């Protein structure tokens, strides 16, 4: 009680501090949340006009895709394209006239070793500078992602995810590929090209390895792909295993063990030792996903007749059912924020769509509807503010990202057939 009052006093005090109170913030969790209108002025170039233009486009696309911002259409801009970065040289009323609240400006410089940008973030109404940074990057795209990350961090107080990667499996004519994309779907790199089935990549939390289900040995087994030496090694579990998932601290792997017609959730060390069986029901128990603190697991079980989501402690105790709506719920993914579990559900029309269930209260929200016949296999961005999945809305299944409400969805890729995306961790700072 006393502690609560103390906390309330501290909150009131911090709210009264002018520096905090004046700072415009995007409060993403607020019920009346609306995207903040920002203008990204064409970046000024020192030496490489093409790079400046490319970085500008990357920032606009990143901020728009996040769902946090309304990125204003540059065709409506009234400001002089050569307008400088210093607040005194900026005609703020021209930016207010197009509806901008935030203004992103930068000067892009090409140096001997890559690029750098002088970034300025400005508040239009007050006519003042909010942020000034000099950021380096190897190329124009990287520079754009860095700038977008800084803008997100300023407004939300959380790290942006624009420099992360998304791994996925791509179907080829005679096999499968393990592919990794930048978080905007660009820059696809093939890590493995296999004749045998490949499925369900999962990132080691440090981003150095991917755990993949491979049929190289004839049946489903867990394999580890390492980026540094491109090695691909089996995790010797001694049993049929699929859908491996690294625990948040990297010390354990949860997976689905297959024995005859039964599947159960197991965990083991990353080298295959220390195996532990967590579920024992004769029903199917599968698709484990770790809670962000590593203490619990979400999984799918049909022990009640239809596939439903369940949660349990990491030692298998306290198994309880989480979803009671729908008759076909699968592929749970626990948000890194801990509040939601995203999953795929088949509805009464036999259409697969994306949903999320709140851990607290069990309320289910729908992210996709009438956007193709299949939207499935979600994977959360490391900040839990976006989710990647595959959708056949444009033909063959492609990568799509969305905010957790499904309000802003962007198809990232085209061509090929993609499945089981896995969003990678934040890069080291």
């Amino acid at each position: 009680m006393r502690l609560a009052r103390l906390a309330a006093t501290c909150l009131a005090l911090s709210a009264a501090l002018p520096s905090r109170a004046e700072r415009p913030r995007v409060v993403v969790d607020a019920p009346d949340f609306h995207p903040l209108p920002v203008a990204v002025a064409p970046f000024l170039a020192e030496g490489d006009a093409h790079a400046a233009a490319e970085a500008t486009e990357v920032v606009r696309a990143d901020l728009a895709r996040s769902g946090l911002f309304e990125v204003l259409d540059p065709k409506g801009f009234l400001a002089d394209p050569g307008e400088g970065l210093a607040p005194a040289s900026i005609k703020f009323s021209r930016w207010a006239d197009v509806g901008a609240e935030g203004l992103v400006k930068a000067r892009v410089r090409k140096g001997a070793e890559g690029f750098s940008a002088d970034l300025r973030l400005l508040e239009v109404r007050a006519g003042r500078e909010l942020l000034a940074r000099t950021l380096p990057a190897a190329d124009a795209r990287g520079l754009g992602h860095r700038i977008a990350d800084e803008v997100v961090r300023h407004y939300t107080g959380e790290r942006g995810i624009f420099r992360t990667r998304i791994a996925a499996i791509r179907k080829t004519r005679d096999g499968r590929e393990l592919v990794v994309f930048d978080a905007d779907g660009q820059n696809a790199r093939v890590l493995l090209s296999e004749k045998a089935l490949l499925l369900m990549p999962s990132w080691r939390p440090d981003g150095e390895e991917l755990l993949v289900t491979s049929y190289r040995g004839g049946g489903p087994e867990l394999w580890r792909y390492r980026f540094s030496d491109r090695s691909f090694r089996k995790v010797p579990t001694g049993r049929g295993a699929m859908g491996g998932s690294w625990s948040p601290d990297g010390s354990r792997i949860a997976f689905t063990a297959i024995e005859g017609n039964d599947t159960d959730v197991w965990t083991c060390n990353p080298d295959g030792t220390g195996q532990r069986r967590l579920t024992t029901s004769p029903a199917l128990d599968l698709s484990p996903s770790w809670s962000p603190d590593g203490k619990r697991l979400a999984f799918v079980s049909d022990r009640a007749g239809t596939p439903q989501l369940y949660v349990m402690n990491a030692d298998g105790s306290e198994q309880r059912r989480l979803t009671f709506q729908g008759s076909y719920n699968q592929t749970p993914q626990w948000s890194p924020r801990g509040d939601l579990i995203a999953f795929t559900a088949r509805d009464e029309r036999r259409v697969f769509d994306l949903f999320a269930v709140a851990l607290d209260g069990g309320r289910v929200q729908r992210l996709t509807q009438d956007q193709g016949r299949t939207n499935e296999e979600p994977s959360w961005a490391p900040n839990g503010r976006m989710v990647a999945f595959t959708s056949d809305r444009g033909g063959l299944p492609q990568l799509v990202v969305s905010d957790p409400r499904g309000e802003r969805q962007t198809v990232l890729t085209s061509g090929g057939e993609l499945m089981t995306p896995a969003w990678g961790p934040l890069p080291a700072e």
Partner: protein
Amino acid sequence: MTSGGGGRTTLTDINVTPLVDVMLVLLIIFMVTAPLIQQGVQVNLPEVRAKSVDADEQKLVLSIKLDRSLWLGAGDDAARVPPERLEEVLRANSRLQREKELFLMADKALPYGVVVEVMATVQRAGITGVGMITNPPGEKRRRPDEERPPK
């Protein structure tokens, strides 16, 4: 909907669809005196009595000068817009598309046709309300270089 009994149906609802269509096509025009608008763009406004607007109701101002040049914004920072780009610029303007209304300030000596052409462009850009700005009679805006009239 059918009414019960006797198999007779009565048409009681007015079909509002054509009415709505007409409403959507119409450009809503109103006159305002806006003494608070900073006049950076040199425009001689007609002097007509009209409803005056508060500063917080103020919309984005589009001005047509006597030389027929188009300007967006008020005060010294108004930006000149080439006529061929006007529709695109208005359509891409987030504030306008949210408010759906702008203030038009046209020099009183301009031909009617010039003003109407601009208004048609405004409407094509998806803006549904135009406030025609006038000066209140007898309160002629005085420029600093203007001499005081004799008493």
